[in-house]
């Protein structure tokens, strides 16, 4: 077997890896905003729920979370197919880390901006969405870029709940051919290319957000 023959199964796996990664980045971002905003809320119940969620998912290993959702949850009658389980778990993990990014960025908006908003009689939610968030989002982008790449690399673990992702396909190929060097080199290159695309997309979004004269100080960082 030549190395070109390894490509079709690996590409099939890569497709699943990309799907899981993109889906869990998108869902994770939604969770990150929800939990991050809840953490800065003056509502103690909301803030408390968000705190427990963040601590739980940041404080436990992803692999154990995956096994728990895949093997333990069905025991109390709730079960999902492997892909759903993988996307769900990764979203929850990415969301927990992202929530801290959102919270930090919101807190970094100068207090004087909030005082100006108060003096103009804006409501709290209007201040959040129209004054704080537009300034905070730009601060979040570099950290979100890191999280997106971390998320992609974490998807490799879903191979352990029988999802045929890139890592899973690589394992199978190696078991058949015993050509570890070629198979794993190709797999590394595969992950790297996907990561590179993710980085470029994140950079593009950040550039778009920073464009224009509104934030000149951070334009070239």
């Amino acid at each position, binding site marked *: 077997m030549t190395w070109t023959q390894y490509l079709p199964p690996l590409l099939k796996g890569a497709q699943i890896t990309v799907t899981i990664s993109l889906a869990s980045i998108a869902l994770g971002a939604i969770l990150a905003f929800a939990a991050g905003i809840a953490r800065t809320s003056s509502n103690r119940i909301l803030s408390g729920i968000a705190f427990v969620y963040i601590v739980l998912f940041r404080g436990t290993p992803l692999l154990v979370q995956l096994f728990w959702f895949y093997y333990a949850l069905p025991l109390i009658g709730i079960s999902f197919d492997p892909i759903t389980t993988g996307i769900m778990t990764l979203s929850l993990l990415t969301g927990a880390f992202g929530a801290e990014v959102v919270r930090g960025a919101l807190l970094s908006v100068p207090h004087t901006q909030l*005082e*100006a908003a*108060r*003096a*103009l*009689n804006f*409501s709290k939610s*209007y201040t959040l969405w129209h004054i704080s968030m537009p300034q905070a989002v730009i601060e979040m982008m570099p950290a979100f870029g890191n999280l997106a790449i971390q998320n992609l690399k974490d998807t490799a673990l879903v191979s352990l709940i029988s999802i045929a992702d890139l890592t899973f396909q690589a394992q199978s190929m190696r078991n058949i051919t015993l050509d570890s060097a070629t198979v794993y080199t190709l797999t590394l290159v595969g992950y790297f290319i996907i990561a590179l695309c993710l980085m470029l997309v994140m950079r593009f979004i950040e550039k778009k957000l920073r464009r224009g*004269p*509104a934030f000149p100080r951070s334009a070239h960082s």
Partner: protein
Amino acid sequence: MNPIIRFENVTKRFGALTVLDNFNFEVARGEKVTLIGPSGSGKSTVLRILMTLEPFQEGHLELDGIPYHEPGGHGPFKASEKHLHKIRCNVGMVFQSFNLFPHMTVLRNIVEAPVAVLKMKRDEAESRATELLRMVGLYDKKDHFPSQLSGGQQQRVAIARALAMRPRVLLFDEPTSALDPQLVGEVLGVIRDLAQEHDLTMLLVTHEMRFAREVSDRVCFFDKGRIVEQGDPELLFSNPQQPRTREFLSSILGEPAPARESLRRVP
């Protein structure tokens, strides 16, 4: 006529530090009052309490007949958010550091609050904003972002932004202290024009003594959370009665350097 602002035995503490102690102060409708005094004497705190940026612990305060504390009100402000909203409808504030919104153009900085808070139609708000920008002489900068303006221009936009909400009381918290000396004049010019408006009540904290003398109906000298001396600017500046007032005025007026310069170096 009833005073528009009435502080009655107001006490304000930051932890163990008492900033205002049994403070009494009244301002008549349309009056222009300047608050002067050394740093930490409580003059900015008076403005920040009026703007509901700071709560106070004891006493009674009302603005245009509306008390700040609600009967049975909770939280540090002893009032609901809705009640504070009602109070803020009558007050506007201009800050030392301008605090324009950096992600909005000059025009949007001014239009945003009338549209979102007063539910004004956008084109109506824009024509009012245009009028205000002409008044402060910055109509040609309406599509610029704050970062593209000088400090003096930013402060003039901030004044227009506060006026767009049609406040009855406008508070100026050291509006020229963060400006380069050559930019102070343009901001004082705008404030001087505003002082001609009979209906607008103005409270101004400043270190610009000559300006205070020129525009205000009354000057109040603050020291350690109390008004030590107050009265007609001509009388107070030419013939201060209290030793503390004399000491303060000679420390900033008696030096050969301009008053502003000497105070800017005080940390």
